[in-house]
């Protein structure tokens, strides 16, 4: 048995793995010019792509690194708010604003991580909740900068490359697609690298990893920083597409939980997981939105999210990817 397992893992990766991801990429790239594709389909596609990108970013720290961040809304929110404030107040192009957002998010992650990642266990998760709620209260209080409870709306200048704005959703389909492909590639690179191996070692057994010479704290912190920067970058796209952000959609726990669903449903720690999970979640969320409007049941969508979360954790902890993978002998 042992020999068979070794032989299987040593076999070259199946070629089909390299081809199949290109099919949906090509399909989405052609979507805006295909006949019969309306604005609704494009809008849902952009939503799905943003959702997948955010899920992939969370997957880096939680899926590969095993650190449960419940506060990724902080980095999404910082990406949105910094991009938006710099554009509205100073007229700085979002192309640069998003870099500033990434820098701020990484700095906040550095402080959070330095304070909470040294000890193991649940404290990191609890601390991330606290930081998002603190951001929520601060964003509501400093109205002049953030727009308070009602949030920050981007000043719309019409279709412009410099302002990264567009009346049609088509450019956002391409931007989202590029983002998803790049994030997928980053995840693959991390997984294949020594750093990715160390992150997974820390996730599976901190003591054993430390005994094998992995610098545990440094590995956890770097994973968290990478994930925060990726989330803030995707936040920049979020802001340009939705044109607005408010404290609840940025820092609320509901948002933090939504950010986790693509990776959890698709399969934690795999590059394909958030892509599959995000696509499925978007379909599910469109269905529940339709259902809750039709039957006038506010909150059904969240109920479904909770149920899906519970079912996945209890009965399919490896997500869709785990279900698709052939069971090992």
């Amino acid at each position, binding site marked *: 048995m042992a020999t068979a397992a070794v032989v299987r893992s040593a076999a070259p990766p199946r070629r089909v793995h390299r081809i199949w991801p290109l099919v949906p990429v090509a399909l989405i790239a052609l979507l805006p010019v295909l006949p019969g594709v309306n604005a609704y389909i494009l809008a849902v596609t952009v939503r799905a792509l943003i959702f997948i990108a955010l899920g992939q970013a969370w997957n880096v720290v939680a899926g590969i690194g095993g650190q449960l961040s419940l506060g990724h809304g902080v980095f999404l929110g910082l990406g949105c708010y910094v991009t938006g404030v710099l554009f509205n107040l100073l007229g700085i192009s979002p192309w640069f604003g998003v870099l500033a957002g990434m820098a701020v998010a990484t700095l906040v992650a550095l402080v959070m991580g330095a304070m*909470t990642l040294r000890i193991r266990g649940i404290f990191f998760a609890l*601390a991330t909740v*606290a*930081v998002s709620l603190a951001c929520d*209260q601060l964003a509501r209080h400093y109205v002049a900068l953030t727009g308070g409870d009602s949030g920050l709306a981007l000043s719309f200048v019409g279709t412009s490359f410099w302002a990264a704005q567009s009346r049609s959703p088509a450019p956002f389909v391409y931007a989202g697609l590029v983002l998803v492909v790049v994030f997928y590639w980053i995840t693959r690179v991390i997984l294949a690298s020594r750093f990715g191996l160390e992150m997974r070692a820390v996730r599976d057994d901190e003591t054993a990893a430390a005994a094998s010479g992995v610098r545990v704290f440094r590995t956890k912190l770097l994973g968290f920083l990478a994930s925060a920067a990726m989330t803030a970058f995707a936040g920049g796209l979020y802001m340009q597409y939705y044109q607005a952000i408010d404290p609840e959609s940025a820092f609320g726990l509901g948002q933090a*939980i939504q950010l986790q669903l693509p990776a959890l449903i698709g399969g934690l720690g795999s590059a394909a997981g958030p892509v599959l999970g995000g696509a499925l979640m978007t379909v599910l969320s469109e269905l529940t939105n339709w259902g809750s409007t039709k039957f006038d049941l506010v909150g059904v969508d*969240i*109920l479904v999210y*909770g149920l899906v979360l519970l079912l996945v954790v209890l009965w399919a*902890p490896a997500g869709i990817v785990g279900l698709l993978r052939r069971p090992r002998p």
Partner: protein
Amino acid sequence: MDSLLIPVAQALLSGVLVGGVYGLLSIGFSLAFGVMRIVNFAHGDLVMYGMYVGVVAAAFGIDPLLMIPLSFLLMAALGAAQYLLVYKRFVGRATLQQLLAAIGLGLMLQMLAQIVFGADTRSAPSMFSMQFVTIGPLFVSAAQVIACGVAVVATLLVELLLLRTRWGKAVRAVADDIETAGVVGLSAQTINITAFALACGLAGIAGTVMGTYYPTDPSKGLSLMPIAIIATTIGGLGSIRGSFLGGVFCGVVQQCTALLWSSALQDVPLYVLLLLFIAYRPTGMFGLRTE
């Protein structure tokens, strides 16, 4: 200086009264962690259901305070069901999966409440809700005094139960070492269910007394979770006394922040304190040494 003295004394007094109830809702959270290593993120949602027990009672003209025993029993039953359906398989390991399962459970409880009771804010006034007590220049709401009194009594009873009864001894034995407890003939499963039910029942009591002065809505439970987390971390995860004092401390910090800075930012110092405790003293003031 004198002009500040009275408001500060007032803030301290209100803080202790509010904080006592925070303490009660925190000891249940702490108990589940201390005995089973379960981080029950849905604990706040049981507090919220405890508040709705009072709302329903008030709608029928019954004083919510009379519902405390029923609230305790209902939430204890709900807790036992949660334990058997979800948490049983996670006992002993506070893992990522366990936290996520608790979050999923909490979301479902919250949305069920929204579907059943609606999203509007509801209140559950008791016979004391419109009365005020004056102590010299200070005044407090009678409902808060009663609520804090109930919280103190319930906390003392839990301490007695854990320290003075055979059941309490068994709970502590299981918490210390689940395998050895089995060897000496204790059924860890039974003890865990009863301990978890007790923890959830306490959430029910906390909710019902809090409902007499604090209006509720389906998201109230989630918004109370940070308080439970902070109180328990400052007091020490797993320590009943520590969590209660942590809750009182949270109440005092909130009221003083509201007075001296801004009531909209009353929780921000608590979040900063939580980070500092996690960084420099993760066992809290009275917490478990191990982990």
